[in-house]
């Protein structure tokens, strides 16, 4: 009988306000899979979500149990119905998997995950990135995607090349204008229900989301954060670890249910303006001070100083201001989310968004924990890379010094975090011509590393410091020292079994270039091959800048004698 089921398509009445951009939604739920396990709540999710979105003024198309063809047809029809400036909302409840960093949504007729058939399975599934691209083509200004599905990799144990372990690569950064809510974190399962006695017609994630969607005045990112905390708590009651994730590519917050009160005009249009808005919203001395630390000469600096002077003096974080344990947990989760997003933008080459996210995290750390906290030091550490990515090296060094100061107070001067940050600072000192200061710092660093037992991250950091020192030695014209430091860095990573990391590719390619500069072309070529092997093992794309340079160097070869 189930074979006779066809996709049931329901279209709800259009209730969008005529004065606003149209709000259109596509809601898909699949319970009755042909081969993979059936679900109980996915259709309940689709029905309840359609009803909720209809209340919120969306014109909703609901598709139940579609096979791949029907799924694609539904996407295409939905895309054609959208116009530039519209708001698009897509909800999927069903099975999902994550393979090679791709989130795949499984239609009703998906084949079984047979080993060796990974490519076939992927072609039979709906690739979320492709779906998002298709919706983006419509010109819809705001695109919200809710994926209530697992993100596990069924081929995680495979020895097939190109498939990573269970942790996955994580999602690609969403395109500008897209906001993605996942019911589970990377490589996690999503709960269909809270056990056999769970009578709620919707899944654990969707039931919580439904309650939050019509919160007046709440932005979609605030909704996502609230839902994450609540779902994680619910899942933990039955021993599951489900931590919903979201990825924010919106250029500004989007509110599904506006509050009645008119919003005060906000500064907008730049990273600094967004940071200022955020600091002003938080309204604390720490937030404004952190804004000024980032933008001491910015357009909004005077306004920030004025706002700061209007605050009552409170140089010390009072007990009242200290977040309780639950809030602290929530803030730390938010910080991690911001850093994850920042690195996604970094990997995607969007350095402005990378800096924006890292700056927001630093403001949040300052406002929540104070500027002498470990969280603020961590946030400053993140700012080093973010500032560097846009060429603000002086700001990067200032952030580095902040982190060193705090880590040293909290953990002593031989802590790995301190050493790592000193290596960051030394590399930038060297790059800006402060050779003597950099040399002294590197010497101190290597002495400190040599006296410490190192494991894992420590070994990788030691190797990174050696590599930076090797580059400085090259700049000073000391080839033998450069070769010595670089080969030591390579040896450390190899002994630690870290040859499948991108860091190995970096370090090995540095040694290769030093060898080549010293006229040892054959040895350099061999080292470039090892660097490429590391990049490949780390699953870095061949088009990635460093990997592409390594491949180009290999291709050059050595001149024949």
């Amino acid at each position, binding site marked *: 009988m189930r074979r006779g089921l066809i996709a049931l398509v329901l279209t709800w009445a259009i209730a969008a306000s005529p004065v606003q951009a149209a709000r259109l939604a596509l809601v898909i739920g699949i319970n009755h899979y*042909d*081969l*993979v*396990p*059936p*679900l*109980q709540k*996915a259709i309940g999710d689709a029905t309840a979500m359609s009803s909720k979105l209809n209340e919120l003024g969306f014109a909703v198309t609901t598709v139940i149990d579609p096979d791949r063809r029907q799924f694609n047809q539904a996407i295409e029809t939905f895309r054609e119905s959208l116009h530039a400036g519209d708001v698009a909302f897509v909800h999927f*409840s*069903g*099975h*999902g*998997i994550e393979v090679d960093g791709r989130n795949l949504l499984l239609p009703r007729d998906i*084949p*079984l*995950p*047979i*080993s*060796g*058939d990974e490519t*076939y399975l992927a072609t039979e599934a709906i690739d979320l990135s492709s779906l998002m691209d298709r919706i983006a083509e419509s010109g819809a200004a705001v695109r919200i995607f809710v994926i*209530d*599905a*697992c*993100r*596990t990799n*069924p*081929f995680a*144990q*495979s020895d097939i090349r190109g498939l990573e372990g269970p942790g996955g690569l994580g999602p690609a950064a969403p395109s500008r204008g897209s906001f993605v809510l996942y*019911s589970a974190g990377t490589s996690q*399962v*999503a*709960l*269909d*229900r*809270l*056990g*056999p006695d769970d009578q709620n017609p919707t*899944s654990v994630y969707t039931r919580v989301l439904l309650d939050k969607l019509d919160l007046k005045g709440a932005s979609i990112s605030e909704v996502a954060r609230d839902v994450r905390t609540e779902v994680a708590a619910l899942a933990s009651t*039955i021993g*599951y670890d489900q931590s919903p994730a979201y990825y924010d590519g919106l250029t500004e917050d989007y509110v599904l249910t506006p509050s009645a009160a008119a919003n005060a005009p906000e500064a907008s249009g730049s990273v600094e303006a967004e940071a200022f808005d955020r600091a002003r919203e938080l309204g604390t001395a720490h937030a404004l001070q952190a804004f000024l630390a980032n933008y001491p000469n910015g357009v909004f600096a005077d306004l920030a100083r004025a706002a700061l002077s209007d605050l009552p003096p409170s140089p010390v974080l009072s007990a009242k201001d200290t977040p309780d344990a639950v809030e602290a947990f929530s803030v730390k989760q938010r910080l991690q989310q911001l850093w994850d997003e920042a690195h996604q933008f970094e990997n995607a080459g969007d350095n402005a968004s990378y800096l924006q996210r890292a700056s927001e995290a630093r403001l949040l750390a300052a406002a929540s924990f104070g500027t002498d906290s470990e969280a603020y030091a961590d946030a400053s550490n993140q700012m080093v890379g973010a500032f560097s990515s846009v060429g603000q090296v002086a700001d990067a060094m200032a952030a580095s010094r902040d982190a060193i100061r705090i880590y040293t107070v909290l953990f002593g001067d031989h802590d790995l975090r301190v050493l790592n940050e000193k290596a960051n600072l030394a590399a930038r000192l060297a790059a800006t011509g402060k050779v003597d200061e950099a040399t002294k710092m590197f010497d101190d660093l290597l002495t400190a590393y040599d006296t410490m037992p190192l494991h894992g991250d420590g070994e990788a950091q030691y190797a990174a410091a050696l590599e930076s020192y090797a580059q400085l030695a090259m700049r000073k014209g000391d080839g033998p020292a450069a070769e010595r430091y670089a080969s030591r860095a390579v040896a450390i990573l190899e002994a630690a079994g870290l040859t499948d990391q991108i860091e190995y590719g970096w370090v090995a390619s540095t040694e290769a270039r030093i060898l080549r500069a010293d006229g040892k072309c054959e040895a350099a070529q061999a080292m470039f091959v090892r660097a490429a092997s590391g990049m490949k093992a780390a699953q870095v794309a061949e088009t990635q800048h460093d990997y592409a340079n390594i491949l180009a160097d290999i291709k050059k070869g050595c001149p024949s004698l």
Partner: protein
Amino acid sequence: MGRRVRKSVWIALASIVFTLVAPGTVSADATPGGVALSSAEATMLEANPALSALATTSPQLLRQVLDRIAKLIANPSDARGGLQQLTEEDWKLLQQNPALFQAWRSSPEASADLLELIRVAAGGKPRK
């Protein structure tokens, strides 16, 4: 790719699901190894060659396997996924044994041990 389930398998599957959820009726049926079976279980053995082979080669395991199948079907996974890859060997086992396929569909993760048990009992090498 030849992954489609034959119609006959679906029919057998439907009959197995029915027999598994129907009230158990104890019968005097017994395997050559002396394992007492309900009539539903005896029907299941007829439709599942891996189980009937087990009755001959490893009767001591048969009761354990039957109990596991019943438990898996009665306790479907709460998760929306948890799919794990199947080998060609697993796939053949599931195609030819509708009760095992139903157990897998109910709880894929928890079925891994069951499939391993049956493979090893049939003379295969353990994978773990």
